[in-house]
């Protein structure tokens, strides 16, 4: 649970195919191979002499937690640092630290990731430790209960202590009727409290292993030198790891949903509206790229929503748009705004809608589309400056069913989106009446 949202805007990799005036990063040059036990390995060579980022991705996340046992994957994430048959509690971090490395992990809905950044000549140390805890975690009662308390503190800190944290959780829960995306990644409090050591250990033994894992190493590395290291370490782990059960599918939504919450600690109201969208991993690459461009036209510092609502009409303190299209089973196109003191939510909503209609009716300019494409292409080059971000983007993409070719082709795809495509996307959104609206506001004075 460490990764920031909005990954696509920050970390975009790919290959540009030769349009004038747009910077080109060239292909990623990543190479992939598979170990005898089924574990896939990817090397991403980057210009970072002496440094590597090492990350193992498991092909399941919080959305795969068993029914009634939300928080399972996140609980295991914590326990992964608490010792194996061959390392003491906390020793994993100590060994990495003594070698100058830094390490962490996160749990997302579709994937769980365990990573470290370390000097190239210490890479094998990390690989041995990571391979060891893939199947070797030791479960122990005192340790398990202490970690449960830490997790409950984490939940208090991230969610329960803040009205916006609680509201995010409520909005997420209301956005999915059957699919487990509706559950909090960290888990519901009562389910975290009820998880038993036996349940957690059984889940770990069943699913954690090479066949469910992907290794990405980025930086001062190539496939040829990575292969023998991977064979010596992860290659020695038996081919275990059952696939997780298929997730419940989301039925069509028939009703508009509005989620409203009041809290005395909220100072300004916040409004958002979500439109259901398929996303990159549901076979809708072109539609997704179009929504990325639409979000860039509407959102951001020079976007239409900020200009119209914040600068010109002065009815909002902030306004923007975002496409959440990186989830395996679909996502949302999102518009949001925070009203000024004397603005009614109804008027704010109408003003946001009017901007969407303006795109649908009057179109977008060539400059707006080009600006978006230029920024995505530049973002791809900026991302190459960041070894861990690059590794993470590759890992998340592949583990959700994307390919290295998808990554290398992304900028070309964005470049192919026309102003007419963007208009079509805005019309589709407006034609869908089944939206989810979120309103968080101060407790009224009465």
């Amino acid at each position: 649970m460490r990764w920031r949202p909005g990954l696509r805007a920050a970390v975009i990799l790919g290959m540009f195919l030769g349009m004038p005036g747009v910077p080109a990063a060239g292909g990623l040059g990543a190479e992939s191979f598979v170990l005898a036990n089924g574990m896939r390995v990817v090397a991403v060579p980057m210009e970072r002499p002496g440094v590597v980022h090492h990350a193992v991705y498991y092909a399941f996340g919080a959305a795969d937690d068993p029914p009634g046992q939300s928080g399972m994957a996140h609980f295991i994430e914590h326990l992964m640092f608490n010792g194996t048959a061959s390392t003491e509690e906390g020793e994993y971090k100590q060994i990495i630290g003594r070698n100058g490395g830094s390490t962490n992990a996160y749990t997302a809905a579709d994937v769980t990731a365990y990573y470290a950044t370390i000097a190239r000549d210490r890479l094998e140390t990390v690989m041995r430790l990571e391979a060891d805890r893939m199947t070797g975690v030791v479960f122990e009662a005192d340790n398990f209960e202490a970690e449960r308390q830490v997790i409950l503190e984490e939940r208090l800190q991230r969610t329960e202590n803040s009205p916006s944290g609680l509201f995010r959780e409520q909005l997420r829960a209301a956005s999915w009727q059957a699919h487990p995306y509706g559950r909090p990644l960290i888990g519901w409090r009562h389910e975290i409290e009820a998880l038993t050591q036996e349940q957690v250990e059984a889940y770990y033994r069943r699913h954690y292993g090479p066949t469910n894992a992907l290794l990405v190493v980025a930086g001062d590395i190539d496939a040829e030198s990575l292969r023998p290291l991977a064979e010596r370490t992860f290659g020695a782990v038996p081919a275990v790891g059952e696939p997780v059960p298929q997730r419940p599918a989301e039925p069509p939504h028939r009703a508009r949903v509005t989620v409203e919450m009041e809290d005395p600690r909220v100072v300004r109201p916040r409004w958002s509206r979500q439109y259901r969208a398929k996303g990159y991993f549901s076979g809708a690459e072109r539609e997704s790229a179009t929504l990325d461009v639409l979000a860039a036209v509407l959102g951001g510092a020079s976007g239409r929503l900020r200009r119209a609502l914040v600068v010109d009409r002065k009815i909002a303190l902030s306004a923007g748009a975002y496409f959440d299209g990186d989830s395996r089973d679909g996502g949302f196109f999102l518009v949001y705004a925070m009203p000024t003191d004397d603005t009614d939510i109804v008027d704010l909503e109408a003003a946001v809608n009017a901007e969407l209609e303006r795109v649908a009716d009057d179109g977008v300019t060539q400059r707006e589309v080009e600006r978006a494409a230029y920024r995505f292409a530049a973002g791809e080059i900026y991302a190459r400056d960041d070894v861990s971000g690059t590794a993470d983007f590759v890992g998340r993409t592949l583990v959700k069913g994307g390919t290295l070719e998808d990554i290398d082709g992304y900028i070309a795809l964005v470049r192919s989106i026309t102003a007419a495509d963007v208009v079509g996307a805005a019309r589709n959104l407006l034609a869908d009446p089944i939206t989810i609206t979120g309103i968080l506001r101060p407790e009224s004075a009465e």
Partner: protein
Amino acid sequence: MRRGQTLAAIVLAGSLAVPCSGAAADPAPIEVVVSPQGTEAWLRRDSSLPIVSLAFRFAGGAALDAPGQEGLAQFMAALLDEGAGPYDSVAFRERLDDRAIGLSVSAGRDSLFGTLHTLSENVVEAAELLGHALARPRFDDEPVGRIRSQLEAVRAQNETRPGSVGRARWFSLVFGDGPYGRPSGGTQASLAGIGVEDLRAAAEDRLVRGRLTVGAAGDIDAAALARVLDLAFGDLAIGDLPDETPENGNFVGQRVYVPMDIPQTELVFGLSGIARDDADFFPAFVLNSVLGGGVPETRLEREVRGKRGLAYSIYTYLADAKRAPLLIGATSTRDQSAGETVAVVRDVIRRTAAEGLSAEELADAKRYITGSFPLALDSTSEIAGFLVAMQTNDLGIDYLDRRNGLVEAVTIEEVRRVAGRLLVEDAMVWVAVGRTDPFP
């Protein structure tokens, strides 16, 4: 600093440039670049990506805001990219976005810190825009009113956030009405009262070359950087250094409880710290790394989180504040555990003050601190920022080479001595924000 025009860009490669073998491989030496108009920058060139990063710092931040004008530094900094030179706010943002140029300036307590991040093909345009922002900010009515509303919204929201409330109260307890004690984000009255003339005067007084430090990294050579420096900073007045008189913090063991109806109590604690140029800085740095900020599992993490499950996070850091260096820590724990957590932290501080570190802790910490240092400087923007810090703190151009040696040289006796000097447990100032008072 000023040089004749004929010298153009003076690049002191050869004699002053020093290779920085502290980094993982063999990067280019740091070059000292002086522009025709006399602005100096340290540059580490790296052409592996077509990116240029500039970091810059003007000495003097929110602590310079006069009583009644709290928030002025933040207000002024937030307006620099909201219209400058020939461009109004919308046009300025469009110029940045058209070329994917990242420009930001923010106000800390002691400085205005900025970054410019661009593809090298746009570096001249980026420098021109930065030059407009610093020398010709417009402070048009629309953005001034809008940013005022936004700062007021942030200020009001922060009053409901336990972490912000706890920190603000802590600084006010320690520094009273002094420059560090007043709210750097402003008060409702001060934000309402700051006018365009105040903003303009703050920009003219504070954005001056006499207070400026610049670092650059990435795909740019010394001659091109010299031109960039003059485009970005050449139109600024020379000015002079701000008055940053040292402050005496009031550390007499105050423990203050602030009621707030939340399930998890926020705890802020701290003591006087150590200046960056103090002879004991490195022993103190190693000590703090083991105590609460740096090594993989600090003493506080082990006792509070690992052994007792009292918190998800607990940390301490040495705040290199110009007028009064500090050692500050924070954690949060469920309401019922706040008293126990305070007791555990106090016990760790007392024990560490008395015993210092074990030989094994010291050795492990040195290995972590020296090994992770080159890995941390892993992007052009981080390198540019570090080059600014090296200059600001007078570390010398060969610091990257010397730094790990300074860490290695720290002895267990030095750590014990500095622990006794810094960790005066009964002077420690505490603030708790939550449902119940944890202090006995």
